[in-house]
């Protein structure tokens, strides 16, 4: 069977499973649609959260980023996992106790203000829409590379699949498909890693292989890698920081706080039956995430080493271009791998010096996608990677779309404009909002705006500087009032946007960057992507100061805060 046929078969099979689940898990009430009926087992919810969280970026791009950044790539590993500790201890159990459907709903009630709710809806929609664009692109790219269909057609197939299970099943359909998608993506990620680790080190567990000696030699894999990259003039793999340690600190902090503040992750914890389930479910989510996140650094280092030793098998002996392997030819066709014979010797010389380096382009996304081919693994493994990439993108897109559509139908329509609609009308409205959100995401996938590349960082910045602080203060400070919360959100958001725009351009149009994207102009050497943590600090400080000089929240709000702090009585609170 050819690779093409195998890929169609594997991807087709996974899609059939997702549609089967959609038909089985239809939503019949708004509670089903928004929070899957509130009866999801904590381990199942953990698995669904892991799929929801791990996007096309985690699956395809992260290991590639680490492969070329080495130690500096640790910011993503720690940042995108450490946020779950904050979530489990500072937000999830209390928001579950509060027992409503959406994040803006909590903000609106806790701060007794429709204005605060609207500000929260806007933050949520901006953060989620920017995030969903990346997923749509991921779906289109995965289709066009692996199934060799047009990008547009691929995107349409992806939209159709999400449409079926998200519109039909809401959170209930999404949760159960996400569980299936998690299984697909984790197999797809770990199987190649196990094979490669076994090849290189003889140890089948990648996490241990990374710290082992190379097969048949007395040299540790990481020492060899350090040696190889330094010989070519690159920075040492295990110690090369990203810009500076201060910057790494702030970037990691921003990603952690941002992770804990992303609404599509938070709402997953509304689906479990009890407060104590919300606590343990965050732990299970992180277990399932950690399986991929601790494998990724091994994939990164091993892929980099494999790439290097293909191009330059022995130091000073280069690969003959005419004898390049098949995967090299395949990826050249896509333009993601570009060779230029600068000294006309027909050999491939790869080095850190741009004047002599002949590997002009090595797109970092190749590292995961081409990894099984580089390691000469069988076709079914390559097909599995295609299905895994699609599962990662689809599951995250669905979770984001649910957060967007429930903010529109529940917070804006039911909460503000038409409070008197019946449940059946709201359910219909939420389905229409979901369909609308899918069409919008698809439109943005067809016509990605110029600023798309910078926007995922913006989503984390927004969540870190606006949503996380306001939620945390709502639980941990009884004294925090409406004025403080709104001032804090506006200040945190304002500072973050101002900093990003002044260095990256207003709405990411580079020519409007009035301070230029120049590291010497950066505040304390902090890159714009890493500024969410500063925004969060500003938010906390402003909110604290404003709340001290304005009147305390009304009595019943203080009782509400006392009530969400204790688990007892959560069962009754869930029904509206």
């Amino acid at each position, binding site marked *: 069977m050819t690779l093409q046929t195998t890929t169609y078969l594997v991807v087709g099979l996974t899609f059939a499973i997702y549609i089967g689940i959609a038909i089985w898990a239809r939503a019949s009430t708004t509670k089903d649609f928004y929070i899957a009926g509130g009866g999801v087992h904590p381990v199942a919810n953990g698995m669904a959260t892991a799929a929801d969280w791990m996007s096309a970026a985690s699956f395809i791009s992260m290991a590639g980023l*680490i492969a070329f950044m080495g*130690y500096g*790539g*640790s910011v993503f*590993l*720690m940042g995108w*996992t*450490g946020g*779950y*500790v*904050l979530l*489990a*201890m*500072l937000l999830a*159990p209390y928001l579950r106790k509060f027992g409503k459907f959406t994040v803006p709903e909590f903000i609106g009630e806790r701060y007794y203000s429709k204005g605060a709710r609207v500000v929260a809806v806007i933050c949520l929609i901006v953060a989620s829409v920017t995030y969903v664009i990346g997923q749509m692109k991921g779906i289109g790219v995965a289709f066009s590379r692996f199934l060799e269909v047009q990008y547009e057609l691929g995107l349409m197939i992806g939209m159709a699949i999400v449409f079926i299970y998200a519109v039909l099943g809401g959170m209930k359909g999404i949760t159960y498909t996400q569980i299936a998608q998690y299984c697909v993506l984790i197999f797809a990620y770990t199987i190649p890693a196990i094979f490669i680790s076994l090849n290189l080190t003889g140890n089948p567990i990648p*996490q241990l292989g*990374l*710290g*082992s*000696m190379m097969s048949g030699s007395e040299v*540790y*894999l*990481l*020492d060899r890698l350090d040696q190889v990259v330094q010989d070519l003039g690159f920075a040492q793999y*295990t*110690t090369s920081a990203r810009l500076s*340690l201060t910057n*790494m*600190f702030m970037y*990691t*902090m921003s990603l952690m706080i941002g992770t804990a503040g992303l609404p599509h992750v938070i709402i997953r914890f509304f689906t479990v039956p*009890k*407060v*104590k389930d919300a*606590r*343990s479910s*965050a*732990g299970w989510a*992180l*277990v399932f995430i*950690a399986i991929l*996140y*601790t494998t990724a*650094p091994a994939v990164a280092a091993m892929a980099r080493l494999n790439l290097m030793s293909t191009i330059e098998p022995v130091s000073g002996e280069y690969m003959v271009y005419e004898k390049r392997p098949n995967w090299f030819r395949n990826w050249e066709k896509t333009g993601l791998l570009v060779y230029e014979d600068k000294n006309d010797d027909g050999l491939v010389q790869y080095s850190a010096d741009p004047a002599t380096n002949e590997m002009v382009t090595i797109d970092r996304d190749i590292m995961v996608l081409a990894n099984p081919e580089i390691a000469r693994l069988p076709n079914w493994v390559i097909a599995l990677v295609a299905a895994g990439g699609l599962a990662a993108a689809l599951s995250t897109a669905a979770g984001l779309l649910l957060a967007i559509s429930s903010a529109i139908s529940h917070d804006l329509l039911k909460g503000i404009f038409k409070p008197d609609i019946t449940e059946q009308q709201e359910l219909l409205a939420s389905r229409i909002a979901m369909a609308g959100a899918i069409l919008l995401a698809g439109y943005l996938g067809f016509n990605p705006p110029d600023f798309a590349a910078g926007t995922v960082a913006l989503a984390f910045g927004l969540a870190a500087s606006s949503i996380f602080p306001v939620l945390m203060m709502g639980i941990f400070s009884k004294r925090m009032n409406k004025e403080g919360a709104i001032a804090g959100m506006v200040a945190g958001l304002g500072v973050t946007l101002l900093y990003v725009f002044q260095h990256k351009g207003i709405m990411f149009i580079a020519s409007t960057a009035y301070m230029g994207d120049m590291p010497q102009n950066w505040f304390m050497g902090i890159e714009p992507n890493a500024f969410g943590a500063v925004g969060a600090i500003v938010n906390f400080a402003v909110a604290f100061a404003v709340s001290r000089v304005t009147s305390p929240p009304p009595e019943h709000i203080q009782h509400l805060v*006392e009530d969400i*702090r*204790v*688990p*007892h*009585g*959560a*069962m*009754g609170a869930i029904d509206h």
Partner: protein
Amino acid sequence: MSKNKSYWSGNLRLVALCLAIWFVVSFGFGIILVEPMNKISIGGYKLGFWFAQQGSIYIFVALIFFYANRMGKLDREHDVHEDKSE
């Protein structure tokens, strides 16, 4: 209400302990102290590098389950758990 007060302060103490560990293993060992930590090796891993790319994640997982477990006990000690009848 004083019962709930001591429950809440017990929770805050537990959160503070967990977040202190969370901070030390990631920001401490993985970033601020990475250079001195890297002088120590376990197997082929430099220790600072290991904490940044492996160890901190394992400890995060353990921390959440530790917290969930201890909070479950605290809920029962202060009789605020969810299984009790209204």
